[in-house]
Every structure is written in C-alpha cells, then in structure tokens.
C-alpha cells in the first residue's frame, strides 16, 4: 500500500482508503476518490506536479500533496 502521490506513472491502482478526515479529504471524496475505485496516473506535469489521474473514464488533475491523502494498492 502506498500514497497515490508517491506511485509511478501508468500503473493500475485501487483506492484502499482516504487517510484523513480533513476538509481537503472531503473534497477529494466528493470528486469520487473513494475506496474500491480504480485509478491510474495518466500524466505528470513537466515540473513534476500536479498529476493527472484517470478514474472511470475521466481525467482530473490534483497536486501530489492532495494525492497523498489517498491510499492505494497496485492491481495486477
């Protein structure tokens, strides 16, 4: 298990949990970053941050600092 912000580009990942109950975690949950969903880092900005995450056919970009609130595991 890893933080989403620390994972590599282009791996298929499953969200395990949201690691915080702060307001920012609430915002991510509202966007659909919820346990059980499959995600993938589709793109990384040239300067390394933010990262663009593909989820259920949608792409949404967040900063690594926020992505680190999301705990994921790799799926084969």
């Amino acid at each position, binding site marked *: 298990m890893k933080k989403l912000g620390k994972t590599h580009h282009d791996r298929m990942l499953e969200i395990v949990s949201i690691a915080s109950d*702060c307001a920012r975690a609430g915002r991510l949950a509202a966007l659909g970053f919820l346990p059980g969903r499959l995600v993938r880092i589709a793109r990384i900005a040239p300067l390394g941050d*933010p990262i663009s995450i593909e989820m259920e056919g949608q792409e949404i970009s967040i900063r690594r600092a926020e992505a680190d609130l999301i705990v994921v595991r790799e799926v084969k």
Partner: protein
Amino acid sequence: MSFADPPGPVRIALLGNPNTGKSTLFNRLTGLRQHIANYPGITVEKKTGAMVLAGRQVELIDLPGAYSLAATSPDERVVMDALCGRLGHRAPDLIVCVVDATNIKRNLFLVSEAAELAIPMVIALNQWDAAKRNGLRINAGLLADRLGVPVIPTIAKRGRGLEELKKAIGHTLADPRRIPRILWPDFIDDARDIVRNGLAQFDVDVTGPEALRMVFDADSAFADKIGHKDRVREILQSARDTIRSHGMNPASVEAVLHYRHLDALLEGVIGGDGMVARTRNSMDALLLNRFWGTLIFFGVMYVVFQSLYAWASPLMRLILAASTWLQAAVSPMLAGTPMIQSLVSDGIIAGVGGILVFLPQILLLFLFIAVLEDTGYLARAAFLMDKLFGWCGLNGKSFVPLLSGYACAIPGVMAARTLEDPKARLTTILMTPFMSCSARLPVYVLLIGAFVEPAHGPIVAGWTLFFMHFVGAAVAMPLAWFMNRCVLRIRTQPFILEMPEYRVPTLRNVTIRMWERGREFVVRAGTVILAFSVILWALLYFPRPESVAEKTRAAFIAAQSAALPAADVARALEDPASGLSVKLARRIDNAYIEQSCLGQFGRAVQPVFDLAGFDWKITVGVLASFPAREIFVSTLGVIYNLDADVGKGTDDLRAVLANEKWHDGPRAGQPVYTLPVVFALMAFFALCMQCGATVAVIAKELNWAWAAGAFAAMTALAWAAAVLIYQIGSRL
C-alpha cells in the same frame, strides 16, 4: 411556493459543477439582460439575468460552479446560502441543475446533495453532443424516471434543447417535482440531531440540511456563522464521533453514501464504453508534453502578451488622440468660465479618455481568455504552470492574470475571474498590481537614461531596465507566501483541475464574454475612475487666488525686462501665441500647482519622503502620480518649468534633472538626483499602486476594504523600500 402567486418574479437558480457549460446556458437563456454585482461582504460575483417564460417574469441566478455544497469559507458558502434563501432573497422556486453528460455520475453528486433541500428541479443534460462523440449512450428517459424530475438533453453552446428545457421548467413550476432525498442511515440522522439540538441553545436558526453540512464538512463555514467557537466545535466533534463509531470516515461518509445511491440509480442508464476520446489523448500528449507542451505554452503566451503590449497601442493612442481633440474642441466654448472649462476639459474629458483607453487591452485579453478557455487550452496551461505558483498560494491559473499585469494590471485583475478557488483568486488579484505594467516603463526609461546610462554605459542600463521588470514579482511572490501563511488564514482548498474536451469556440460566446467584460469595466469601474479623475483635478486646481497669477506675471515681466526692452515684452505678451506668452502661461500653471492642495500637501509630507532622498519637487511628482503613474514624467516637466512639450521628448527633462541641485538645507548645492535617489525612486514606482483605475477595479472585483488595504500596504511597502535603498545606498 405555488406558481399561482409568487411575490415578484419567479426565481430560478442554475446549479452545476465547473466546466459544464452552465454560464453558456445562462447566456443563452438571458441573452444580454444580465446584472453582475458582488454578494455583500464576500468576493464572489453575483450574476443574475431576466427572462420571460410562459408570460411570467423570471429572475435567473447563475450560482458559482461547485463540485459540492461543502464550504469552508464564506465565499464557498454562497451556493448553499443562495439555495437556502439566506442572501436577502427567498430560496429559489426551482433549480435547473446543469449536468455534464460526459460525466454524469460525478455531476449528479452535487445534484444529490442539493436534493436534500427539497426544491423542485429540472436537469439539463448538457454537452450531449460530446457524450455521443465519446461513445456514451445515455437513456435520458430512464434517468428522468429514476430521479423523478425532467431530464432534458441540451447543447447550450449551439442553443439546442433550450425550448424543451424552458417547457420543462414551465411544467415543473406548475407541477413541482423533486428528487427524493437520500435515505440516510440512522447514525447520520443521529449526528444531525446532535448538531441541531446542540445548537438550539445559541438561539440560531439552523435548518436540517445546514446541520447536515456541519456534520459532513470539517472546518465548516456554516459553523463560523454561529460564533461560540469552542462550544460549537465540541458539538460538531461529538456528531462526527458518532460517525466514527460506526467505522466511517466523517470526511468521506457523505460521498460514500451518495455515490452508492448513484451507482444503483444509474444502473442501466449509461451504456457504451465512455473512453476518453482518442483525439483528445493525442492532443494532450502533444500539448502537455514536457518539451513541446512547454514550447507551445510560451508561444501562446507570447502572442497574448504581444497583443496587449503592442497590438493594443494604436487603438489606445487613437482613443487618447480623440480625447485630446475633444478637449481642444470643447475648451473654446467654455472659455468664459475658466473653472468649468478646466473641469470639463482636464477633469471630465481627460477622465473619460482615461477610462476608455483601457478598453482595447481588456477586450483583447478577454478575446484570448474566451478562446483559450473555450478550446480547453487554459486548463492545460494551468496544469503546465501550477508548480511555479503553488508554493505561494497561487495556482496554475494565476499565470494569465499575472502575465497580463505586465501590460496593464486592470485586465489582469479582471482575468483573475478564471480562478475558481476564492483564496487563489484573491491572492492573484493582490499580486497583479506588482507586475511591472507598461505605464512604469516611461519612468524607468527616463531615470535610467538620465543617470544610469551616462554613468555606467548602455549595457548596464539595459540590464537595469530588464531587472526593474522583475522587482515587483520578486517582492510579490514571497509576500504572497507570507500572507497565505500568516495573515490570510483562509483554509486551503485542494487545487482541482479538470481537463475539458477540446472544443471549437463559438463566435457568439466569445463576443458575449468580451462585451460583458468591456461593459462591466466601463459601467462599474469607469464611474469610480471618473470620480477619481475629477477629485484629482480639484486637488490640483484649488485654491486658485488671482494674486498668484498676478505675482507670477509681475515677476516674469520684471525678469524678462532686464534682458529685453519693456515695450517688446509687453508687445509679445499681447499675442497669446508668442513664445513669451506660452512661457508665462506655463509659469503661472506651475505657480498654481505649487499653491494647490496637492502642491501644499507635497511640501507638507516632503519630510516623510526626505528619508528616501526626495526633494519637494519629486514628492509632488510622486503624489501627483498616484491616480496614474504615467503622469509622473509630464508632471516633472511642468514642475521643472520646461518650455518644450515633454511629451515629445525627454532629452530636455533629462538634462534638467541631471543639473537639479538642492537649494537649501543640509545638502545645499549637491545634486538632487544621485544614484541612490534614482534607485529609491524607481523602487517606489515598482512597488506602489499608483493607479486609481486599478484601485477601482480591485474594489469592484473584491470590495473597497481590500482595495484600500492593498493601496495602503503597497504605498507603505514602496516607501519602506525607497527609504531602505536610499539609506543603504547613500552610505556605501
């Protein structure tokens, strides 16, 4: 509320995520019958428009785009407050939810939250064409059955589906239909009751949906309204503990339950693969590429900047020429009353010209912003640049406003509307006036040309000019960081950036955007700028005792008569076009400026600026430049009694400045303009908000308190920097 007897017009709110085409739909429904204002006390734009529906007057409210009703700041609370009827209006009679058909589930999350309020709803399933292109097959009829409210496919950009939407709105007003509330598990109801019962002791009126928001949102802005911070926090803590005791995370429980509900509701509604379109992927691969993407980005930004900096200037010159022509045409008609003549010519016509002169840049910038936003490129640009700005509380979308600030702060401040995050928008607006706008350039050119170039050569002069362009930004960014850390304790929201589909912008949408911004600037900011212009005119005009002119005239004649026969002087002065007459007129003007409120004020505050090495003449020049810094060069021309029109060339002025010496005091006989003074003066111009129009625009975009605060802070900062540079420089 029944449709039969509403007091006043029917109120309909437009609710939706960002990037759903909500504003386009709003424009389509209201045409140009729109009204833009600020919600009182906060910095969010309130956009309302009028339309007629089935013979009834309708007031349409375009709520700010949001992903959720959660709010941690008063700015974010606007959506919920408007829906609850807390902003001085009753709650809307109906909500039109704009849902992006390419992303139904996430968009319905907000709708599902709003369903809690039990207001009748109609769903506009917008961007229907894009959903089809992406291979989605959506059963809108089935979705309408499941939700229990009308679901109308629309393509707002092309005006498709609007008649059906209006018809559905009419039906729903007559026969209100609501989306059933989600059935909360008992522990959520318990948590809500803990909040409602707990808050009852404070004698506040909190509705069930608002209590729910306080349960779900950490740092809820709804709780801030109540006061009694510590006790309220305890109550909310115990409500959230109830959720924790059921093994759920209070930050995500709402989303988990809503999405579970939506998963069931959308079963069988959406078919097809819904893959991210292939063209989009290959475009992104190029435009977001480390090398090519960055290159294209700088290319695009170069064009935007050039257009503001260079292409707008012929139009701007034309507007100034027209205002000069008008001054010359009107003046003779009012020659009988010099005060009215001066008010109309120098106060009003110059003031209106000074407003209109910003229009070319504003229109051009909003042309580019509309095109960049509608094509979907602006979001990509923000993605590329975010890292550069994130550390100091700005974000990737700050780039365009800040870049525009290098041409002119006014369109830059207005462009900050593209930032959805209120805190980042606020910070961007406050940083923009620090960018080295084109009006600072003449001041730098004059001073560097007169003092740096002769002493150190053209190469050093060139580098100095280059360096001066970054002084503001170099001071502003750490200041932004500091403000975000220590002063502006607004809670940070995550930076969320959606990459919209690539689209071809429509002429209609682009024109409406340009028209809206242009009109808004002229109507809302223009009136304030005009008032500033008239006030400044008065400060420079009054008091105006006749004796000043007589004394100056007598002294002038005496001085001239020493060199020429008195009769020649008298004859020359008979002719108002003679060299001597023009010279005398300038002397009198100058004497009046010295006598004016501003001139006297300049002398009075000179000791304050003395610490930066400024004499009273520089001080008056600096003060006179507060409404518009570009005035500085011409004001110096008047103050130093230059006979030639300094607008035409600054060579004379340079020579005069270089020879200017202190007349009295401890530095008598020494030159006024030493290098420390010159750099102190340039630093002052770099950091000071000497632009009445910018103050007015910030007041309109945020509020007067922020505008006044920014003005005071920048003035203090500029003064401190000037003093520091002079004091250190003169000791080296």
